[in-house]
C-alpha cells in the first residue's frame, strides 16, 4: 500500500518559482487544500497553468490574492478582478489561450506530441507570431505543447494504488493535466480500498500519480 501525505507536505514539495498545472473550472474541481497550504507556506513566483483564476477567495483566486503567482496561462480571467488588476500593474504576466487549445496543448504535452494543429484562432490576434500551416485547403495554427513541474489534481475517489475517479463537471482539466507534469499530486474527496473502484471507472491510473493528499480530518 502506498501512503498519503499531508497537504502541508505537498506544499513543501513545491518550490518557489515552480510551474504548476492546477485542475478546475471556476474553482469546481480545484484542489483547495493544497492551495490553502501553498498560501500558508507563502509560496512565491509560481506559474499557474489553468482554465481560469476563479474568483477572489476561491480556488486559484486564493493564490492570486496572496501574491503567490508571477505568471498565468489561462483561457479566461474575467471572473477575477484581482488577476486583471495585477496584470495591469505588471505584477502578474498573463498569457491568454483559447480553452480548447489550452486543453489540447496540455494533452499534447502529456502524450509526447510536438504540438497541435488547430483551426481555432486563425484570423485573430491569437495567430500573431505563430506558424500557419495549410493542409487540404484549410488553415491551422501550430500550437506548442505545454508541460509543468507539478500537476495539482482534484479527484473524487482515490484507492490505495492512487487510481482516481472524477465527478460530473469537476473532471474538466484534471485528467489531461495528470499526464503532463513531472510530479502529479492528487487531492481526493474520498480514499477507498483497492478494488472499490471498478477498472472501467478509473479515469486516471495510479501509475501516473506520485503523491496522494490524505483524507480531510
Amino acid at each position, binding site marked *: 500500500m502506498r501512503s498519503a501525505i499531508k497537504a502541508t507536505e505537498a506544499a513543501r514539495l513545491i518550490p518557489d518559482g515552480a510551474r504548476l498545472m492546477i485542475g478546475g473550472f471556476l474553482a469546481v474541481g480545484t484542489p483547495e487544500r493544497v492551495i490553502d497550504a501553498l498560501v500558508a507556506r507563502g509560496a512565491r513566483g509560481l506559474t499557474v497553468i489553468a482554465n481560469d483564476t476563479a474568483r477572489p477567495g476561491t480556488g486559484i483566486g486564493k493564490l492570486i490574492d496572496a501574491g503567490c503567482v508571477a505568471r498565468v496561462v489561462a483561457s479566461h480571467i474575467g471572473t477575477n478582478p484581482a488577476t486583471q488588476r495585477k496584470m495591469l500593474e505588471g505584477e502578474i504576466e498573463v498569457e491568454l489561450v483559447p480553452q480548447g487549445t489550452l486543453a489540447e496543448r496540455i494533452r499534447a504535452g502529456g502524450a509526447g506530441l510536438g504540438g497541435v494543429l488547430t483551426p481555432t484562432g486563425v484570423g*485573430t490576434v491569437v495567430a500573431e507570431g505563430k506558424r500557419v500551416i495549410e493542409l487540404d485547403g484549410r488553415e491551422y495554427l501550430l500550437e506548442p505543447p505545454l508541460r509543468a513541474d507539478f500537476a495539482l489534481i482534484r479527484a473524487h475517489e482515490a484507492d490505495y494504488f492512487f487510481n482516481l475517479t472524477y465527478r460530473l463537471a469537476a473532471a474538466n482539466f484534471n485528467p489531461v493535466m495528470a499526464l503532463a507534469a513531472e510530479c502529479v499530486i492528487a487531492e481526493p474527496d474520498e480514499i477507498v480500498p483497492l478494488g472499490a473502484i471498478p477498472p472501467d471507472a478509473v479515469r486516471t491510473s495510479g501509475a501516473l500519480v506520485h503523491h496522494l493528499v490524505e483524507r480531510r480530518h
Partner: protein
Amino acid sequence: MDAKELIARRVALELNDWTLVNLGIGLPTLVARYVPPGIRVAFQSENGIIGFGARPPEGMEDPALVDAGGGFVGAVPGACSLDSATSFALIRGGHLDMTVLGGLQVDARGRLANWMVPGTMVAGMGGAMDLVAGARRVVVAMQHAARGGPKIVRELTLPATAARRVTLVVTDLAVVEPTGDGLVLRERAPGVTVEQILATTGAPLRVEGEVPEMRLAPDPSAGAGQALR
C-alpha cells in the same frame, strides 16, 4: 415580451431534433426555455456536461454540477460528463450542430467579434474561439444596436473571434443571414419596418422582396418541448 425573450424565442426555432447544442453565457442560455414541442436537444456545456437541465431547488445544488458560467444546473436522464479535452474535441471536431453566442459586432463578411473591447479590462476568450471555429452552425443572439450605435458594421473595429462567417444573426429587430454575397435581411421583428432596420444597421443589407415577420417558438407555459428526454 422583452427584447431578450423575443431573441431567444426566435433562436429556439433553429434547434434541430436530436442534436448537440451549446448555449453561451447570458442571453443565449434563455433559448433553453423555449425548446419547441417535439424537438429533443442535448445541451452541452463546454466545462464538461452533455444534457444539463434546470437548476435544482435552493439547497439541493451539486457543487460539481455547474455550467460554463459557474452557475448551478441539473442533469437530465441520459446526461454524461466529459473532461475538457474531450469536450473541445466535440466542439472543434464538427460534432456540435449549433452554438448560440452573444455578440459585440458582426461585420459585412459575417465575422463575429465577441470577446474583447480594447481599452477595457481583458477577460479572455474562454471557449468562444473554439466554438466559432468548430460548431457546424454559429447563431449570434444580440441587440441590434447598443448605446445608439449599430452592432452590425461594415468592418469589425473590435478583435475578431474567428475568421469564419457565422450562420445567422438574430436581434431584437431582425434576422440577418451573412452570405458569400453580403448580409441579407431575412425577417423583421413584429411591428418593425424594413426602414427602421436599415437605419440602425451599419453595413449594407440586401432586401429581397417582401421581408416576412419573425416566427417565434411558443411560450413554455403553454406546454412546450423538453431538453433530451
